[in-house]
């Protein structure tokens, strides 16, 4: 005889539960935690290097890659605590991976924790890690159609940062199109433009972060 058993549980319930534990941990430890997501090569690590030079030991970074510790090395060199997760193939970070890393980090001077996700516009966007909000980066060199082609991320990101803005004169990138597409996906998203090469826009980003940490 066949028996039907109702379950009605989200497939991400396990991850969501650990994400809630992480969120609780961040709150208890007075940390502002952010989840940084973009394509590979759009400037996540460059932004974090700039932030490490500004914030030093009050910033900590958990950075994810398929392999190698280059990103953590760059951020450590720039002055902040950085630990690397090597996923060996997994295309996104999970709440459990973050929880494991938090155990080995000395966070007593840290106010701001940035999780640098795997370079990927698809998979990382649906995994809650316990962060306060998601930041999406799009570099001018990638093209202006990214938000509309990969809506899952831009629907969820509270901040959209257009990076490498200094390259605008050399690439076909319509900033107005990006703004209009992003606002369709999330009318409450905050849009910023930056260049880590020239420093343009970074003060606005720091001001925004400091407003949240105050």
């Amino acid at each position: 005889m066949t028996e039907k058993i109702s379950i009605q549980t989200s497939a991400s319930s396990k991850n969501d539960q650990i994400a809630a534990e992480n969120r609780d941990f961040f709150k208890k430890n007075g940390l502002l935690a952010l989840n940084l997501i973009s394509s590979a090569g759009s400037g996540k690590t460059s932004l974090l290097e700039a932030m490490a030079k500004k914030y030093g030991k009050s910033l900590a970074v958990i950075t994810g890659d398929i392999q190698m510790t280059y990103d953590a090395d760059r951020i450590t060199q720039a002055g902040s605590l950085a630990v690397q997760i090597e996923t060996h193939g997994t295309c996104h970070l999970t709440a459990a991976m973050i929880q494991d890393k938090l155990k080995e980090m000395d966070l007593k001077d840290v106010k701001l924790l940035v999780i640098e996700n795997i370079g990927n516009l698809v998979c990382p966007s649906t995994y809650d890690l316990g962060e306060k909000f998601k930041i999406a980066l799009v570099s001018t060199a990638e093209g202006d159609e990214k938000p509309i082609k990969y809506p899952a991320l831009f629907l969820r990101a509270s901040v959209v940062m257009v990076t490498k803005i200094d390259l605008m004169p050399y690439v076909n990138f319509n900033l107005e199109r990006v703004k209009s597409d992003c606002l369709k996906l999330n009318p409450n998203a905050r849009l910023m433009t930056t260049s880590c090469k020239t420093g343009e826009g970074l003060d606005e980003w720091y001001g925004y972060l400091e407003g949240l940490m105050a």
Partner: protein
Amino acid sequence: MHEYGIASNIADLVLENCHGKRLEKVNLDVGALSGIFDESLKMYLGIILEDKGHKNVELVTRFVPAAFQCVCGKEYTAEKMTDACPFCQGYDRKITAGKDCVVESIEVGDD
């Protein structure tokens, strides 16, 4: 490829609930905005369940369209997240359905 991790969670959920009985069917609701490719999810889930001793389990996915509650007060469903509200042409809205993948139910039998 992130469907593998999701399938693995679903397998855990399903096996916790089947209490040692023979698993016959898994019913899944896959939201339009969940970022999940249903065929890929079923492929991985089938492999994982078989590996755990449950062969020939019927895996059924039901598509759940995206539903929105617009600030204009109207509710609507849409195929794409970039579709404007058909009533006011605006985009300021909350997602009310279609964001998740939900394990709806399972069917188990006696051996």
